[in-house]
């Protein structure tokens, strides 16, 4: 059975506190890399039509996409989307056609322009600012702790010196340690 007092003291390694952060950075980097590489292949016309159908609101239903509805209007829109994809129209052209008929409410995802841009920009920006602020606060606190040592009273100092002296006497070692 090993005595904790006999455990050899390890030299201080300055890089140890950074290990979790480096590991986190590697995980995030790998995840982003995988995500980016998956979008590399061009979607088939069917995949494109399915993706468009998923964000078009069924005009005669309540809050579901044309992809999820069997209503006649949804069926007609799915057919029109498939035909326009086959004809080589871009996603933006297909959305524009449907908006020209039903209005912007036909899109389940609101278009990103004007004020609606802020809906998409503000949350990530606020999150990034909050993370940066937290990092700054934590770093400052850490530096302050390092810079300012905790004041030790004479009573505490005497208490620790006595404990060290008793420990060294118990172990049969010379009294080499002193509280600084």
């Amino acid at each position, binding site marked *: 059975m090993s005595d904790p007092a006999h455990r050899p003291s390890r030299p201080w390694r300055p890089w140890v506190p950074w290990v979790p952060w480096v590991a986190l950075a590697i995980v995030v980097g790998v995840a982003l890399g995988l995500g980016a590489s998956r979008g590399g292949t061009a979607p088939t016309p069917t995949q494109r039509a399915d993706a468009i159908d998923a964000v078009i609101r069924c*005009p*005669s239903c309540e809050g579901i996409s044309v992809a999820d509805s069997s209503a*006649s*209007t949804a*069926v*007609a*829109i799915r*057919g*029109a989307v498939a035909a326009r994809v086959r004809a080589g129209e871009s996603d933006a052209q297909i959305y524009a056609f449907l*908006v*020209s*008929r*039903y*209005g912007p409410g036909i899109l389940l995802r609101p278009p990103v322009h004007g004020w609606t841009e802020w809906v998409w920009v503000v949350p990530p920006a606020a999150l990034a600012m909050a993370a940066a602020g937290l990092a700054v606060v934590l770093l400052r606190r850490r530096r302050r702790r390092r810079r300012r040592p905790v004041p030790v009273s004479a009573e505490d100092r005497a208490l620790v010196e006595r404990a060290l002296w008793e420990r060294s006497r118990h172990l049969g070692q010379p009294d080499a340690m002193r509280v600084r």
Partner: protein
Amino acid sequence: MTSALVDGTSPGAEVHRRHTAKWVAGVALVVGAALVALLATRPPQTATEVDTPLVGQTAPAIGGSTLGGGSFDLAALRGRWVVVNFFASWCPPCQQEQPDLVAFAYAHRTPGDAVLVGVVFDDSDSTARAFMRSTGASWPAVFDPGGQIALDYGVRGPPETFLVSPDGIVVAHFDGPMTEASLDYWLARAKGTG
């Protein structure tokens, strides 16, 4: 022996409870009767003008075979006011507006006057034909298999009606059952005489 005595409650409390029950039943009866009267005397639901992107734009093409066996082309009606009505035999508001549409078509039967055109919405040609015949409708009704015409007009569900000017521009879009009076009002207003 009364039930109050059996229950262990006083006769006074029993009488009070019966009075309360009578009052509650009376109030519920009055509220129910008022609700029934309100629903029975409420004016029928009418169409509302809706602001859609198509208003002010060129009317999408309407063409194809009619329920009567002929063919129809909206472009051939340039120079006349056209009322385009999307309908289905299974839709109660369509059944509600049909007599008014018949009256409107009859009132505007003179050559060169406004013309009514029906577009069948999600209905079989046989039931739509039977519906038109049974209501005395004589205007052309275009069959729309696949709902392409409805999609081009941004129709969500019948009945929906569009007013098209003589130069082929959509000037108004209505959602719900039309009346003869409202059709005449909007037509006169579009002509600038209303």
